[in-house]
């Protein structure tokens, strides 16, 4: 976490260290078992830790993430693409994003969760759609890869 040096503390009622919690709206656009790609209206520095909360299959899922990279999407104004790692800091429970992603990828979502009318999760034409497959590159996929 980006920390203010504790050396700046002063005695007395002021100068104490506190925690400022901000909520940054994001869009989850890509998933994998180890991470995800988000779109965000502001820059998040690499290495930033946070708690990602999204509604998947009618349930609010949360997981801790670490920002691996962040770059502005060309030609999209103030939209940043964020590559984030899903951290295994929480017990793997039903309300974790990792479980939801695992179910979606393995195709067991239908049996694991009741369909929800507002469900927005879809993987395209087939039951699964692999975007780029295995890749060691660092750049996010181009928009033409989105297929929509």
């Amino acid at each position: 976490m980006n920390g203010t040096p504790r050396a700046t503390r002063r005695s007395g009622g002021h100068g104490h260290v506190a925690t400022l919690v901000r909520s940054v709206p994001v869009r989850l656009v890509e998933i994998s078992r180890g991470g995800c790609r988000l779109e965000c209206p502001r820059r998040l520095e690499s290495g930033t830790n946070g708690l990602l909360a999204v509604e998947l299959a009618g349930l609010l899922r949360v997981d801790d993430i670490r920002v691996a990279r962040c770059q502005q999407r060309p030609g999209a104004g103030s939209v940043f693409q964020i590559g984030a790692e899903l951290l295994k800091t929480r017990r793997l429970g039903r309300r974790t994003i990792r479980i939801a992603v695992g179910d979606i990828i393995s195709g067991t979502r239908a049996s694991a969760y009741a369909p929800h009318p507002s469900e927005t999760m879809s993987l395209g034409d087939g039951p699964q759609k692999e975007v780029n497959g295995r890749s060691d590159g660092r750049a996010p996929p181009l928009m033409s890869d989105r297929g929509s």
Partner: protein
Amino acid sequence: MPTLGRRRHPRYLLHQPVEGNVRVRDEVTIVSLGDREIVVVSPEACRPDENVSLEIPNSGRFRVNAKVAESRPLVAEDGAIRHRLRLVPSSGGTEAAAAAEERR
């Protein structure tokens, strides 16, 4: 640039992106804590009118909900760029801030 641990798994594009949010925590230094205004020094800038919450650990992780009134950059003693945030406690936050001050 190390790339170990990246892109080990196939990636799947969502047909429709899913809205959500990320809660980011920053360690800040309290400059002043009042009923109507809280001033902190943060490593990150905030946008005016952004809703934030301030957790004050001295009082049992006491939380104050506030809105950012002003965000100005400043140079810290170590030369690093910080941001001076002026926060206005939201409804209920005023009493919370006062209670936090009393607990000190």
